[in-house]
């Protein structure tokens, strides 16, 4: 990267926020770094202002890829597609199989097991794309891999979006 690009980005907080919620999450992460390392004191109050307490005992915006439950998701967030963080949109069917992530809930500091299920049966939602890879493994550890087309087991293999369902508190720390 060139220095001037770094300066431009660091100066442009509003664009950085847009980047953080971008549909292309790996670029989002670069944006997260730019602010995490340099402008975190500027950014954090803004981020708090965006928070919505949609689920009891949680904080954050479930329409944002940064939301704590999405730490190992891969796909479109059902919150943005007519469903919710833990419900598929109308007209779709939740995949029977899922992958599991372990995410830390910042509200209570505990780790939780999260089941990521694809919602199958109709077109790609193409909103709120989010791919995160914390606690995610390659496919030889399939239960925690997020690169699998889980709607394959359904008659309609179309992936609309992906939910993140809390299964319970994890026994061990990550």
């Amino acid at each position: 990267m060139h220095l001037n690009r770094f300066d431009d980005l660091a100066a442009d907080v509003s664009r950085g926020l847009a980047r953080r919620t971008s549909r292309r999450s790996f670029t989002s992460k670069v944006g997260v770094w730019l602010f995490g390392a340099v402008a975190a004191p500027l950014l954090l109050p803004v981020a708090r202002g965006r928070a919505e307490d949609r689920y009891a005992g949680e904080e954050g915006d479930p329409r944002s890829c940064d939301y704590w439950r999405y730490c190992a998701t891969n796909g479109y967030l059902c919150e943005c597609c007519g469903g919710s963080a833990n419900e598929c949109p109308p007209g779709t069917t939740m995949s029977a199989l899922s992958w599991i992530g372990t995410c830390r809930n910042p509200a209570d500091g505990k780790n939780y097991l999260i089941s990521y299920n694809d919602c199958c049966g109709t077109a790609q939602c193409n909103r709120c794309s989010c791919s995160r890879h914390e606690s995610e493994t390659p496919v030889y550890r399939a239960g925690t891999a997020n690169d699998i087309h889980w709607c394959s087991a359904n008659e309609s293999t179309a992936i609309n979006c992906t939910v993140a369902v809390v299964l319970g508190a994890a026994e061990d720390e990550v």
Partner: protein
Amino acid sequence: MPHSISFALSVLGLMLGVLLSHVGHADIAAEPLNRNRPLDPAGAHWAWYLDFNVDDIANSRFVLFDADTARMKGSLGSGAFPTMHASPDGRFYYVAESWLRGPRRIREDFVTIYDASSLQIDGIIELPGARRALMSPRDRTVLTADGSLLLVFNFTPSTSLTVIDLASRTIKGDVPTPGCSLAYPTSSRGVSMICGDGSLLTIHFGSDGTVLAQHRSKPFFNPDKDPLIENGVSLEGVWYFTTYGGQAHSVDLRGEEPVFGSPWPLVDQNKKPANFLASIFTMGKAGPWLPGGFQILTVHEPTRRLYALTHPITWSEGKGDHVFPGAEVWVYDIDEQKRIDRIKLRDVGISIHVTPDESPLLLVGAVDIETEEFRLEVYDAESGDFLRELEEPGEVMFHFQGVSGR
């Protein structure tokens, strides 16, 4: 000026222009219809890449381009989740793909065979069921070293290989591979697969596709503590991988059973984070680095150099590092097991490929972090200089491969 006069003058001017344009020029000869441009002989710097087309995953494509001119040379529509192999004699491309039909995406799996000289379809093999459930790792299909068998990895989530005889273009059957995934070719007619406990399952096949022998190794990495990233590269029959933590592993697949080399570090194993000021003055590049991306490694056979996409942990905050895009490409002498160069990227890289010739180019699938547009950038692999880019490459490029194989 009345409109009618203005219009008359315009018409007069147009007629004069047409007349003048014909003075001293012969007419352009009528051209024949129904012509296709033949595929030029492949240049040293031609390569394929996969445009995953993330907004419409049913319609990915492989794109052939010339890195010398940054011009597209052709493309193959490849359905969803495809892989491509070139036959050793250079006559065919084998594309394993899923067709997702209609709005409900009813799925059918095929291997489509293309004539490599014309890019026309030469044959189609229908795969039973819809069992190729993985989306992106390249090594979900493998061509045996002799080019006789194509093996397709199935995940239902039971794991197995479908064995296809390419001479007869028929399916010979399935081989269950419980607990083991993906497949990497051995030097003979066989494959090794990575198992959930960190071991390898090696299977050797007869010429008719039957299983001759199977061997399960001891674990050679710890998938709980430092998982192996599945995107490896091969150099003269030896495969190289990196772990999440940046340990290079070599796996020699030339014999009956795999031989594992001692791991060596691609990155400084000192994990002490950089202090705040050092981060500021180095644009976050102080402190520990890790490998990450989609196609993280590439290898140049004539110089025995390994290239790896790397990024500072300060950027990634230590989260999901194994797929985090790279700020630089680090270059290693494989035999000396040490870094010899660092190539700074204009944008952040997600996939890299080095051409196999004596004047190699480094191809980088990248993302412009200002515009979030995907880029396909060409660098001199030796000097690290940026040379050119292919405009409008597509959405999420990875799986670069040469015209003659990997």
